[in-house]
């Protein structure tokens, strides 16, 4: 089988505690995959830990946000000739063992982008408030972008080179996840959802976004829609 050039992109901010083991897990499971960590100006040793674990590390000199870090990783991976790009959160919420589930529809040519869905997976222990916010997000995305999904704002996704070149991310912070969905519709990209587990550990709950961020995301998207597009 011809080896495919797959890049795993991890946007990271103050993840020194966990980033090393996550990279090692990815590299053990998929030795031929490239791992790119975009350190978004962490105040801890995230970059050093990532380098030590064998990742390519790009460091932002100021903190820009997850969306900007994702875009930096994609820009770098595309320049390096990536054929398939996988985004995974660096806080340990996602399971590296599930990466093949995301890549399979791309390898088969069934989709241009594959989105992970925690609500399709039986094992996800989504906290009740987060569940309500995410369900509201699904309705908002349906109304805003015309795309009906079972989950939004899941950072676990995979895309082809072609899709990554088309999708333009302008939102530096969390609203980029909604922007990606908007771009999928705009470019009529073929997409599918696959079940992925999201582990809500004490650590990931501390590190993850707060439910109140949803209001900020809505404000950013409306602002962009009205004045910047």
């Amino acid at each position, binding site marked *: 089988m011809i080896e495919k050039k797959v890049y795993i992109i991890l946007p990271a901010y103050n993840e020194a505690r966990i980033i090393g083991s996550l990279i090692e897990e990815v590299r053990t499971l998929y030795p031929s995959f490239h791992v790119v960590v*975009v350190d978004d100006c962490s105040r801890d040793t995230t970059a050093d830990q990532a380098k030590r674990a064998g990742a*390519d*590390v*790009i*460091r*932002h*000199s*100021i903190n*820009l946000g997850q969306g*900007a870090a994702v*875009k*930096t990783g994609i*820009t*770098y991976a595309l*320049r390096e000739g990536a054929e398939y790009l996988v985004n995974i959160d660096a806080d340990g919420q996602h399971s590296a063992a599930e990466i093949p589930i995301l890549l399979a529809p791309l390898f088969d040519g069934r989709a241009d982008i594959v989105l992970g869905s925690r609500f399709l997976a039986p094992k996800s222990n989504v906290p009740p408030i987060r569940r309500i916010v995410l369900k509201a997000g699904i309705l908002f995305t349906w109304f805003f972008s015309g795309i009906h999904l079972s989950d939004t704002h899941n950072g676990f996704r995979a895309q082809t080179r072609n899709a990554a070149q088309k999708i333009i991310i*302008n939102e*530096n912070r969390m609203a980029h996840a909604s922007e990606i969905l908007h771009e999928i519709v705009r470019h009529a990209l073929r997409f599918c959802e696959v079940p992925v587990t999201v582990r809500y550990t004490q650590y990931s709950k501390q590190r993850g976004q707060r439910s109140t961020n949803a209001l900020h995301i809505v404000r950013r998207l409306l602002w962009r829609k009205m*004045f*910047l597009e």
Partner: protein
Amino acid sequence: MVIQILITVASIFVIAKSAIAYTHKTIRMPTFIAWSVFWTAIIFLVWQPNLTDRLAVVLQVGRGADAIFYLSLIAVFYLLFKIFIRFENTDSQITTLVREMGILKKDIEDIKK
């Protein structure tokens, strides 16, 4: 009378600052003209408040002061909008710069290895 003098002095100061900014090419001609016209109009209105009553008739609002208030509100919102857009552009430029610097640093590290 005191407030009229204060506003006049402040307006002349702003026009003078705009003129200096224009000669130093930090603002463009249309901005300089618009700013000068605006502050000259303020001076006129301060000394001829009856003029605002005519404006009120045209805009179909009660008093001249109300007309000025509504117009000022529109102007402030417009300026706020312009500042937001400028801020967004600057933010986007900084992001691009930080991204390119990050990738460039990585390239330099790779060369040094």
